[in-house]
């Protein structure tokens, strides 16, 4: 495993182009485009203000830089560095900006969610979409890029608009049976739209592409409901994580629950392996505690750690959330399927230091990874069943069915990995710290425990 040197970035804005060749990062108000393999700077663009959001177009030719404070969006071309495009939303403000799947339209959501403006870079034409909903996930493009689903709120009722991305023609507009729609997501095959209600009501609705309601699912009433939803890449399963610390799996044929994954604090009788991260503290003698060593501090901060298999029964540390606060830190907040739909990784906010990996073939727990600090981010390798996670320290953790490994990021000054992104080829991981970024290149042969 090789690590690149550390580069600067701001705002955690660091994205690899869809074709996997380029890496774009934002440093203050500059946009830096590097080659992924050599990390040499290829292009350097200067934006008008600090960039809030940066996104590659689907054909990897253009980069969008949105500055929400100024209400500006600047688009840069990789092929022609001289080309420029600036979209000014004016007094109406800007809250979010994104590309359309064809890479030629930009959808800007104005402040207060007054409307969504669709700017065309081909014709400079403008379309408006009224009454967009301000919720967790109101906009979703289907994976083949043909349809856009948008949540709408009109007269205290929720609607879903389905647009054809070709010409922004409104294909379907239907009301949903939700109290307060919180999010929507297309299935990977583009035929089913999952719509879920806010956490005050557990309700997941499944609509067909043509707007028919296929099924409704509600596990219980009154208690706080859905926290996270994820489709499996094969569109066979829909995983729903809720505030009751359980994940329910629905199948795509009957839309009924086929499995329920629980996250108990004490693991007693299970066939899963529990990996516990154990830190190996280097023995520090009293004569070594000189000022010199403390100020350098790397040996103290960068403690080596390794995984040990804990024998059952295992108790996972639980942090009880504050009952008076809204959006309590309890429940399944993160769900991720592996690319072959074989594994599902979940995180229970109650037990923030643990990541649970479930085997979807056997519908049972495969492994539990217990870390020393709260897990910040985890992501599956786009090609292989390999999970990378980080906990805010200077280590990268990898799990695969063969075992798991903890890798120290060799960076000076304490690089704290706060989030990570896999490269689309699965050969490298981009580690993002607070103000830094680092690339980790995987070996082509499998790592072992």
């Amino acid at each position, binding site marked *: 495993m090789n690590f690149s040197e550390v580069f600067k970035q701001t705002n955690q804005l660091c994205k690899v182009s869809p074709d996997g060749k380029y890496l774009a990062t934002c440093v203050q108000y500059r946009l830096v485009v590097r080659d992924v393999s050599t990390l040499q700077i290829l292009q350097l663009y200067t934006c008008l203000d600090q960039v809030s959001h940066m996104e590659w177009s*689907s*054909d990897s030719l253009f980069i969008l830089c949105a500055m929400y404070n100024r209400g500006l969006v600047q688009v840069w*071309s990789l092929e022609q560095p*001289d*080309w*420029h*495009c*600036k*979209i*000014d*939303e*004016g*007094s*109406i*403000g800007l809250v979010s900006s994104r590309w359309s799947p*064809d*890479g*030629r339209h930009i959808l800007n959501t104005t*402040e*207060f969610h007054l409307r969504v*403006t669709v*700017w065309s*870079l*081909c*014709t*400079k034409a*403008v379309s408006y979409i009224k009454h967009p909903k*301000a919720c967790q996930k109101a906009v979703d493009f289907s994976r083949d890029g*043909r*349809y856009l689903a948008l949540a709408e709120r009109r007269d205290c009722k929720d609607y879903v608009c389905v647009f*054809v991305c*070709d*010409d922004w*023609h409104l*294909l379907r507009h239907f009301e949903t049976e939700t109290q307060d729609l919180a999010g929507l997501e297309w299935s990977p*095959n*583009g*035929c089913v739209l999952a719509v879920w209600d806010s*956490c*005050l009501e557990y309700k997941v609705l499944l609509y*067909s*592409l*043509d707007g028919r309601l296929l099924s409704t699912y509600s596990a219980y009433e*009154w*208690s*706080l409901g859905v926290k996270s939803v994820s489709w499996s890449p094969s569109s066979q399963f829909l995983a729903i994580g809720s505030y009751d610390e359980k994940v329910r799996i629905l199948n*795509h*044929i009957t839309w009924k629950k086929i499995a329920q994954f629980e996250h108990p604090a004490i693991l007693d009788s299970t066939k899963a392996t529990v990996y516990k991260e154990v830190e190996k503290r280097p023995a520090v003698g009293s004569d070594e505690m000189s000022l010199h060593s403390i100020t350098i501090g790397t040996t103290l901060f960068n403690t080596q750690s390794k995984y040990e298999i804990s024998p059952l029964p295992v108790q996972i540390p639980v942090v009880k959330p504050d*009952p*008076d*606060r*809204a*959006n*309590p830190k309890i429940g399944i907040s993160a769900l991720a399927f592996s690319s072959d739909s074989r594994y599902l990784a979940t995180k229970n906010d109650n037990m923030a230091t643990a990541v649970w990996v479930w085997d979807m073939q056997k519908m049972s727990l495969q492994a539990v990874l217990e870390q020393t600090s709260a897990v910040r981010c985890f992501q599956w390798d786009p090609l292989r069943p390999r999970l990378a996670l980080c906990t805010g320290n200077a280590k990268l953790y990898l799990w695969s069915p063969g075992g798991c490994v903890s890798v120290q990021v060799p960076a000076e000054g304490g690089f704290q990995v706060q989030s990570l992104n896999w490269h689309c080829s699965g050969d490298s991981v981009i580690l993002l710290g607070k103000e830094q970024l680092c690339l980790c290149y995987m070996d082509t042969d499998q790592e072992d425990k």
Partner: protein
Amino acid sequence: MPESSTVKDVLSSSVECRTSPLRRFSLTSLHRNSLGVFCSEDNVQECLSHISQELSSFGLPPVWTAGGGSELNIVAVLNCMYDLIQLHRRGLRTLENMEVEQLKSNSNVDFLQLSTTRLKEQLEISKRENTGLLERERQLQLKVKSLQNCLKNEKEEVQKLQNVIASRASQYNHEMKRKEREFNKLKERLNQLLVDKKEKKQAIDVLNNIGRADGKRSLWKTEKTEAKHEGEMYKTLLSDYDTRQRELQLENAELRKVLQQMKKDMVSILSSRKQAAKGDKHEHGGTQAASEEEDEVFDSSKDSVELYCVHAREKLTNSIRLQWRRLKSHVERLDSQVSSAQTSESKTADAVPRETHEEEMDRLKLEIQQCKDFIQAQQQLLQQQLSSPCDEETASLLSDCYMLQEKERLGDEWKTLEEQRKIFERERRNFTEAAIRLSHERKAFEEERATWLKHQFLNLSPFSDSKKPSLSKSKSAFLISAETEVSAAVAPEKFIKHQSEPPSCVPLTSPSTADLYRTLCLIPEDSSTKPKTKMEHVEESSVFCGNAPVRHKLWDDIQDRTLSQEKNSSI
């Protein structure tokens, strides 16, 4: 009498407490005499002394002194009697009193007994009541406990619901605050916009338009495009349904196959078991056989018909369930058998199968051993064969021993072939000679014909009868000559045969192959010829065929000639 005896007894008993051996002795001597009377005329003195003694023991003044003789003081005696009577009365009175007392005490005892029985009954009753009350108390306590549990549960549920309400309330509050904040921001922005005169408009500033990603030109929005979008959407949905249905069909087929396989296995297991264990299965045998028959019938029908209709599917699942139930019951029976055999230590149920099993094993082992021995023997022989050294003669003899028979046969066939070849050579020679002769004769015939024609022409007269014999003769001669080449080595009978045919209708068709063969003596008409094998036939036919076209050609040439001659002659 009994009175005096009882008095005596009483006296004796009252005296006994102060007895002395003397007194006893005196008592016994003065016991009843034969008549049963205490005093008689003989023992008056003793009686007197005894009585006075007795009286003195009672505390009464003596009645008789020893020196007074047998004369009694009457006064004293009367006093004594009176004292005695008084004593007696007193005694009676005390007896009465005592009896009364006893009666009283008896009645007391009775009363007490009654009262104890009553009290005992009461005690019994109260005990029973007590237990009843205890029982009720226990039940009530249980109820209390369960009610307490219910109360606890309800309290917990209430607590939970309160928590839920609290979380919902906090969530609502949070949302409210968020909305209020947004509202405030909106108000501020509105104020700002009202105050701010300079309105920044929306604008896009692009250096140049870029082409579409797919290179196509953008289309106007028309009904056609709308319809196209609808169509595409439905196409996507339909293709998805198609793939899903295909997948499900495949899965169904797989599962059906598995189920059928399972059913077959189960049926085979059950039927084999039925054959093996003849004990208690007979009573079930009838029903099983019947149902299995129908299953088998159904099996055959199933093989031909696909299970697409609901009924067939249900039948399959029902039959699977039935078989599974049977298998399960069978396994349970076996389990119980095993367990009963283990507990009762009588292994008769298992003995038979085990014995047969062991026998089977032994037989198989024996078979294996035999086979192994056989293989070993074979190997040994082979080794011997390959490695054993043998002398030259035997070696040469044995070198091609497997081919000997065939070599001999080959030699024979070769000989016959050689003979055939000779025959053919001879015949060819004959044929060539015959051909030469024929050409000579033809020449002669031509000359003769020429002369004959000349004669004919010159002698053209109405009297043609005289020429016929010569014509016929010449014709017959021609026939003969024509046929000599065919029947060169023919027997004379053949000549006559052909001659018998009328000259006008000469069969100008070539003789059949059989005739030709026959004439050439190739096909044996008599059995004197050598035995011919198939090979010879083949050889001959090939040889003959080789020459046949030549002969046919010759024959055809001759035919042509004759035909032309005939034509010429008919003119």
